[in-house]
């Protein structure tokens, strides 16, 4: 029997941190050409899949990277990098 060792999923913080870095690295270019579309980012390769329909962008990303989790953002929705925002609260849809 062959052992299958799944690649570890990144922690949400790591996924968000890497994804944000990639997004802000290409933010100006993306906002010029694809404002309002969804960017689905594969954080290890840095590849970005875009579409006006989030589902389609995710499906395209899943075709190429079926086992990966992605960082997703609507282009233009995030104004500045998290690290530069004083008092920003990192949270997953909730606040304790």
């Amino acid at each position, binding site marked *: 029997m062959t052992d299958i060792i799944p690649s570890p999923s990144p922690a949400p913080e790591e*996924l968000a941190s890497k994804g944000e870095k990639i997004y802000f690295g290409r933010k100006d270019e993306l906002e010029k050409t694809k404002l309002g579309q969804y960017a689905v980012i594969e954080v290890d390769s840095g590849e970005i899949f875009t579409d006006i329909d989030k*589902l*389609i962008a*995710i*499906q395209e990303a*899943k*075709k190429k990277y079926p086992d990966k989790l992605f960082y*997703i953002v609507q282009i233009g929705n995030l104004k500045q990098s998290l690290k530069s925002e004083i008092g920003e609260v990192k949270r*997953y*849809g909730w606040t304790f």
Partner: protein
Amino acid sequence: MDGRFEGNKIYVDLEVRSPNPLLNESSRKISVILDTGCTGDLILTYADAFPLALTLVGLEEYTIADGSRVKFFECIGIVRFGDKSIFCTVSIRPSGSPLMGISLLKKIGYVIEIDFIKNTVIFKKENANLTSITKLSDFPDKKAETK
């Protein structure tokens, strides 16, 4: 196919299930609020979403109205509404009301008629360029029904 008013909110009953064909039995009917300000397809709570075994695809980050950022886990699910079943994105959060966004209504291909005097909501079929899912295994190899 009708919605209903409860107070000033419009509720719609959707059947939601996992895109995994082995988990068809996990479908649940969920009453969601139609939110015209919601840009996503569907937002559910963890309590609603976990029993459905939706497919986790990542993390989405938003800036919300007060300027702060929130991150939602993002999943893929299948929604049945009227006689149509479609794939949609599902953002999940710890608590709050389940919400249905306008993009989901567009994908399903219904026109909504709201009468605030009579408190009635009627969904009318529109000849949108959509087709129903015929095979659950369509995901993710085909662009399915959302073109």
